[in-house]
């Protein structure tokens, strides 16, 4: 068994050397495509941070002061519920202080100074309101009704906060997903082609192997391994790139003024490592599948 494994690895490395140019091309393409895939994940996550408080068609948020009395709170609630014509009452959500604090952790991910000033006791609780109308003037006049109510700390409107970001987010997502899909297919095709070339270069050897009774898997494994390693090395390179990119971005964002909202575009490092693991898996699977299909297609001597 050990002999077979060492055989497979020897053959893989030898083949890698023989096809240096093609292998490098395959590795670079998979690295670039996977980097784009990773970047897509991160950008998406960054925008999500920004938009997390507006998720689910929330059009207006009524912030309630942390020191508001129970009566004030229930008055605001009743008031909101008494307008079923303008407000989708079923979708009305109240986040208490604890829930609001959890949310704030994401919103202020890149702004630890602000976050450190907040605590479960000092944070405003909030009503998330889904308006039934999309008419901006109506929503605006609705907001004005609540600004002056006792206990209300403030009212935010979605269109003020995130219209541009939302549009941008959708656009960036579409473009990056599209590009990474195209590049990923190019990477798979390149790996496939490398394997085909490797098989062609060794066709005499393969013919002899078949005639002396080597099993198909014995012949195939080095090729599959080669493709898998190409995908994996590409993924490793892309992980390095992603790490560098995220680091540069995080330190760049730190330069912005606090409170501009940009700070929430920072992605926590735990999420980045998760994306890296995903990239390694995608790379290995893409390489393995590409070479596996190529080897079963071209090995029929």
């Amino acid at each position, binding site marked *: 068994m050990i*002999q*077979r494994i060492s*055989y497979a690895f020897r053959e893989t490395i030898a083949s890698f050397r023989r096809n240096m140019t093609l292998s490098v091309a395959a590795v670079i393409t998979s690295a670039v495509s996977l980097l784009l895939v990773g970047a897509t994940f991160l950008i998406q996550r960054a925008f999500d941070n920004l938009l997390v408080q507006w998720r689910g068609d929330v059009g207006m948020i009524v912030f309630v002061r942390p020191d508001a009395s129970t009566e004030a709170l229930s008055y605001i609630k009743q008031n909101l519920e008494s307008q079923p014509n303008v407000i989708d009452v079923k979708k009305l959500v109240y986040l208490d202080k604890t829930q609001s604090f959890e949310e704030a952790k994401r919103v202020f991910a890149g702004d630890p100074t602000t976050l450190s000033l907040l605590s479960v006791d000092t944070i405003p609780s909030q009503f998330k309101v889904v308006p039934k109308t999309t008419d901006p003037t109506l929503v605006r006049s609705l907001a004005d009704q609540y600004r002056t109510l006792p206990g209300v700390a403030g009212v935010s409107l979605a269109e003020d906060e995130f219209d541009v970001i939302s549009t941008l987010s959708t656009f960036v997502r579409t473009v990056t997903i599209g590009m990474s899909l195209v590049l990923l297919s190019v990477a798979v095709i390149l790996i496939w082609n490398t394997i085909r070339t490797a098989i062609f270069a060794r066709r*005499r*050897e393969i*013919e*002899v*192997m*078949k*005639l*002396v*009774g*080597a*099993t*198909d898997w*014995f*012949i195939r494994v080095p090729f599959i391994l080669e493709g898998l390693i190409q995908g994996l090395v590409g993924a490793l390179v892309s992980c390095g790139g992603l790490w560098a990119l995220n680091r540069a971005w995080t330190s760049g964002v730190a330069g912005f003024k606090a409170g501009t909202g940009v700070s929430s575009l920072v992605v926590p490092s735990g999420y980045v490592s998760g994306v890296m693991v995903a990239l390694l898996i995608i790379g290995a699977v893409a390489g393995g599948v590409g070479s596996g299909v190529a080897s079963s297609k071209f090995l029929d001597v």
Partner: protein
Amino acid sequence: MVTSMPSWKGSFVGAALNRSRPCKGFTGAHHEHLVIAKLCFFMIRLENVSKMYGSEIPAVRDASFDVAKGEFVFLVGPSGSGKSTLLRLMNRQERPERGNVWVAGRNINEMANSQIPYLRRTMGNVFQDYKLLPNKTVFENVAFALEVIGKPKHIIAQQVPQVLELVGLSGKEDRFPHQLSGGEQQRVSIARAFVNRPLILLADEPTGNLDPATGEGIMALLDAINRTGTTIVMATHDHRVVNAMRRRVIQLDRGVIVRDQERGVYE
């Protein structure tokens, strides 16, 4: 791997004890088959085999013959008469459109693809163009055949020098194919085919690229291998070797067997 197919080995060992002349007049009925199988053992049997290339031209038409264990058979005929196709049908590089091919008691057309490697481990192949790997030494070329079927290193280290001595290449283990003469290259190829001690050796024009004297040497070697009990089927259109050997001759003409003669000559 070999242990996974005890029935195969068993059928061979049992049958090998029996007579080594082909049994003529075999009818093929099932119960008779069992009876006759006890009396004689066919290493290779073709039953009404036809192979087409494309849809029109048959490469082999309705070929039937038996090859007994230990026999040496020449397949003769002009180029394109179907000799090579017959050999390729015997190790299932090709499958016939009609008919059955039996090897060592098993119908190889009905064998699962996953079993074919094990079938081929019981057969050696020798070709006109040797099919040696140019970037491997003589030793490595022969060892390769054992390596890829998973034989352990110490077995390889023991068997390769043995077989190289048998074919007369001792001392040339570290040469590369391009440093050898044609005859020597063919000897390497025979060593590779024989190192696993196959039941059957299939040779396709093994003397085709060699001068007469060198060809004689190769034939002497194949004869020696045949005397160890290995069944040999050799395709050739070399009159001299056929006439000198006086073995069974099966003559083909445009895919049809036109003669099957004991101790025959080329004509």
